[in-house]
Structures are given as C-alpha cells and as structure tokens.
C-alpha cells in the first residue's frame, strides 16, 4: 500500500507548484527582508543632544535615494499580496531638516560646513508592521575641501509610519551627534 502511494507520489511530482513572483519581498537596491526584520522596535523618543559640535554649520539636506522606497504587503504570510507602493518619505526629510541643524549648531562662529544626503530609504509594510531603514551621508568641508565623510544608517520597525520615520531621523541625528570620529575631525568640537 505504502509503496503504491510512494510510486503515485513520484509520478505526481509534476504537480508541484512553486511561486517565484515575489522573491525575497524587497526591491533589488534594498536590504533583504531578513535584514529589515532585524530592526529594533520604535521606543520612547530620546532627547536629542543640543549643539554638540558648535564649529560646524549645516548647509542643507538633500534627497538622493532611489524610488520607489518600498512596498505595502497585505500580510506576512505565504499568500501575501502587494497592495501599495511607497514612493517618498517626506516625514523623514522634514524631521532631518529640523533636527540636524540643531545637532550641528550653525553658530556664527562656524568654520566648517556640512552637507547631508539621504542616500537610501527603505520602507516596507507587512500587515500591521512597518520596517524602515535610512542611510544619510554627511560630508564636511573646510575652506572648500572635504575633511570628513561618513554614512549613518539606522533601521526601526513599528506600526505607525509617521512615528517610525521621525524616530528614524532622530536616531540618525543622534548617531551624528555622538560620532567621535567627526568630533576628532573637527578638532575636538564642543561636546
């Protein structure tokens, strides 16, 4: 009996179906879904350090990330469907534009200038959970020559899009404010 079933199973193995349309769930220029899932959950907002580097002034934050920035899926299961496309992250850009100048403290005595570029944003929704990642490049110049460059990357997950993106911006700014190499490059800075 079992041998018959095994034989039938082998014969019917042509019935196997495999869907390959939604491989890995993320766009090719974004991290994999497994990597996004490692993001910590959004927690209570930490107060941002104010004016830690008083010798640097921010010129501007530009957006230089590929679009779309992500996809909305109906759920996290095997039969998930794409129900939307994420195109931009205005909340992140606005939060960075607000918080970054405060952290960098563009005082009158500023002798260095910084430019920030958001080079990657990934925002994916699986049912009630959103996964977000953002990368910001900061380039600092002094008398026309770049003296420091770094990429700051942060990832978070949570249910609310706006809260997630604002928290992500704060996390990036916090990384910059606590970047010891940046402080050294600026000749000690003021912390």
């Amino acid at each position, binding site marked *: *009996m*079992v*041998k018959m*079933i*095994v034989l039938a*199973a*082998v014969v*019917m*193995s042509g*019935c*196997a*179906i*495999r*869907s390959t349309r*939604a*491989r*890995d*769930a*993320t766009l*090719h*220029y*974004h*991290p*994999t879904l*497994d*990597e*996004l*899932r*490692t*993001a*910590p959950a959004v927690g209570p907002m930490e107060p941002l350090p104010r004016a830690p580097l008083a010798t640097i002034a921010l010129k501007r934050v530009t957006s230089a990330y590929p679009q779309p920035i992500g996809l909305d899926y109906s759920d996290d*299961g*095997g*039969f*998930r469907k794409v129900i939307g496309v994420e195109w931009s992250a205005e909340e992140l850009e606005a939060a960075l534009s607000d918080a970054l100048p405060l952290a960098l403290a563009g005082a009158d005595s500023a002798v260095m200038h910084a430019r920030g570029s958001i*080079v*990657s944003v990934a925002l994916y929704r699986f049912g009630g959970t959103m996964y977000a*990642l953002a*990368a910001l*490049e900061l*380039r*600092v110049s002094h008398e026309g*020559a*770049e*003296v*420091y*460059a*770094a*990429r*700051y*990357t*942060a*990832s978070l997950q949570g249910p609310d899009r706006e809260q997630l993106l604002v928290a992500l911006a704060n*996390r990036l700014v916090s*990384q910059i404010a606590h*970047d010891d*190499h940046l402080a050294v490059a600026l000749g000690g800075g003021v912390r």
Partner: protein
Amino acid sequence: MHSINGVIRCVLVMATLGAVAGSASADGLKPLGGIEPLAPGVASTLPDKGVLPRREGRVVATVGAELFGGPSSFGANAVATLRLAETIGFGIGLRGATGGGPFLRIEAIGLAVNHWAFIGFADYALSDSWVGGALIAPLRRDTYVRVAVSADEQGNGSMSLGVEYDLW
C-alpha cells in the same frame, strides 16, 4: 545488542538536533545600522544587498530534525534531503524510536509560495513506512519550521514538529 543500537541511534539523532539548532542560530543577522567612514572627496557606493535565502535557488540541500509523537510511537528523526524547487525531495534519515532505523524519504505533490510550502511525503523503512503531509514555514533566513502529520501502514497517526536548515 538492541539497546546498544538504540543508544547509538539516539546519540546520532540528538547530535543532528544539536547541529541543526547550532546552524540555525549561526545565521543570525545583526540589526542594520551604525556609522561607516567614507573617503572625503570621493563618491561612495551603497552597500550590496544581503545574502538571499538559499531556498531561492533551484536545488537546496537541507538537514532537519523532528520530534514526533502519536498514540503508539514517540521519538525523533534526523533527515538530510536534496530538494528541487522546494517541493520535490529525496532524502535519507534516521529514526530514533522503538523499531526505528534508517529510512528513505520522498517528497512530492507540493505547493510552495513565498517559501511557505505544503508537501506530501513518504518515509520508507524496512520495518515500517509512513505517509503524510507537512507544512513548512520560514523562521529566519535559512531556517524553517516543519509541522507534519503522518500515518504508518497500520493506520496509526502521529504528528511531528521539526526544524530545517538549508546547507547550500
């Protein structure tokens, strides 16, 4: 003699259980984030996409460990399988239980979507054989949970819970 064989089987199965659990924890990913220094004045490139799950490939080699139980049996299986398109597999295993021993596993009649899979399987051993169906669900990158129901030639049913890890 029988008891020695039983002990050896149990040791082998437990070793496989440990190896699968160890491999599964080894593919732990760290949260993305941090500060990456760049060369001043030089344009930078974004990091490459991370490694995709091995199951994205057409053929994968998988090892697994399962605990099973039913009205008339209880034990553990250690299985190594070569699987095509997530749904058609051929493997060898070792059953650690009363009347256990080596067996052949054939998997077929499968449906796999986004690495979730339903597959039928038949375990063929000299002493006894089982047929059943399994649900395989992704746990993390190369690690999967396998829940199965099966029945032997006498019609005795059993359930099993296991972990699979893709080697390549």
